[in-house]
């Protein structure tokens, strides 16, 4: 079957846009609509778009790590964000924020780190599941 040229070309433009948008969603979270979960889903769909338009094996090459490691790293980041307050003698998962907002990023704190973990975890899990299905075919 002749492959359509529209999808790969569109993907070349869409993928960076979606990835940037996913990071925007990630940072916008907490007080407004967005957050790690939604951001992660958008980023994962960008990657899946790439897998569909080229091939699943191309996505394997693109990924720096096995998706299950990505998921584990994400889970670890989230868990670590909960541990930080323990070093300051506060209960697990206490939200701690920096005093002065950073440029671009805004006011960040341990919940931001938690969301980053969720973001990475969602990318890992979604890509893991879908690549597993793609392999079966």
């Amino acid at each position, binding site marked *: 079957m002749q492959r359509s040229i529209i999808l790969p070309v569109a993907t070349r433009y869409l993928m960076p846009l979606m990835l940037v948008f996913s990071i925007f969603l990630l940072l916008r979270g907490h007080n407004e609509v967005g957050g790690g979960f939604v951001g992660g889903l958008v980023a994962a769909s960008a990657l899946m778009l790439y897998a569909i338009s080229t091939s699943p094996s191309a996505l394997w090459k693109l990924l720096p790590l096995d998706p299950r*490691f990505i998921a*584990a790293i994400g*889970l*670890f980041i989230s*868990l670590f964000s909960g541990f930080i307050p323990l070093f300051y003698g*506060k*209960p697990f998962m*206490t939200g701690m924020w920096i005093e002065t907002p950073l440029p671009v990023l805004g006011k960040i704190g341990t919940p931001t780190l938690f969301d980053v973990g969720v973001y990475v975890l969602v990318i890992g899990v979604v890509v893991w599941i879908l690549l597993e299905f793609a392999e079966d075919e």
Partner: protein
Amino acid sequence: MIIYPILIPLLFAIIIVFFWENQRVKRALSIISTGLLMVVNINIFLLVYREGIQVVQVGDWPAPFGISLVVDLFSAIMLLTTSIVAFLLAIYSVSGIDLARRKYGYFPLFQFLLMGVNGSLVTGDLFNLYVWFEVMLMSSFVLIALGGERTQIEGAVKYVILNLLASTLFLSAIGLTYNLAGTLNMADLALRLQAVQSSGQVTVIAVLFLVAFGIKSAIFPLFFWLPASYHTPPVTVTALFSALLTKVGMYTLIRFFTLLFPFESEYTHTIILISAGFTMLTGVLGAASQTDIRRLLSFHIISQIGYIFMGLGLFTEYAIAASIYFLVHIILAKTALFLSAGMVESIQGSFDLKKLGGLYKNRVGLSMLFLLPALSVAGLPPFSGFFAKLGLIIAGLESKQYFIIGLALVVSLMTLFSMTKVWNEAYWKPPKDPKYLDQHNQVSVWRWVPVIIIVVLSVLLGLLANPIFEVCQMAAAQLMDPTQYIRAVLGAVR
């Protein structure tokens, strides 16, 4: 301190995922994690024993608004027992789980299951409890289906559907509770429910919770999923489920009906007593007709759950103490039975009583590992089962519930009959196929060690019944006086 039982399994599950391909490291990590958990839980138990109820407000949010983690003596006893069993099962898994299952995520799932169990035991918040139950169930869904054998999938479908139904009921009950009381913190809820005028609604909620957890802990008439599914996965997984899942359901029922609904005693406790009687009886009758050891033991799980439930139905301090002691006893004895059945299977290649035989002649040690916990479950002195049942019967005599006592004694006799049947068939009679006799299959040392330890622990529980029962009575006293729990969580009672 009390958050570590949740964090340790999570941390190790993550680390295990990094070693996905390396079987040796994975099983070593699994043993280290559960060992660490056991040490932590011993410390928690000592802390709670000396200093009373421990509370942590997660995220530093004050009590009725945030999620409180609470460990009282009852939770501490359960945490300790489950972590000991988990540690021994982690050792047993080295030989008790085949390579395919080990490759496909058995070890991380084991950790996630433990995280769910520990979370359910320490949480002091209703919705959080739901979340931990889901963590536990998700892991158990995969564990029961892992391996993908035909019978396994059939069992898993029944298990999943009935447990999802239970979760739906649980969630609806939480919704109704929030609508009625405006809070889900268990300590706060205990106070608010006392003040609620329309006790009819409270009764409805209490019964909804009773049905939801009744399905999960397999009481009459909601137990059908258990014998349909528990014999399908490898025996290590069955032992894990029998030690943890139904028992956590029972823990939650005891917690709810002592803390949240202690004033509903007239209506719900009659239901509980009737259901307890039928649970004991149907379980043991179901077991009588089975010839597969695993199915037979699965029916006994149900029967024994009835005894624990009976203690809750009697609802005196002594009865609750007996129930707690019974919980510890049955977790140890039942795990020992399942694991020694697994050893039998590794020698003779079957769980079917008709095919087995002649084990006592060649393998006395192995036979003892079945006989001791079997006599304990049947309730013979000086084993723990005897003292557990004695406690329940004394409590029953005190509250003049003669019918249920009689039933408990009859069921106990039938349990003995059922255990004798296994003993006769598998250990005494000569095997049908003589090739079983001269088989020299060696049982792995990874199976011997944990089973011996757990049988010794089970026997010790009977020999040291007096001091251990005193601790259970302290735990029951804490349960029957909810103000202690409420004060520990909310500070001074408002």
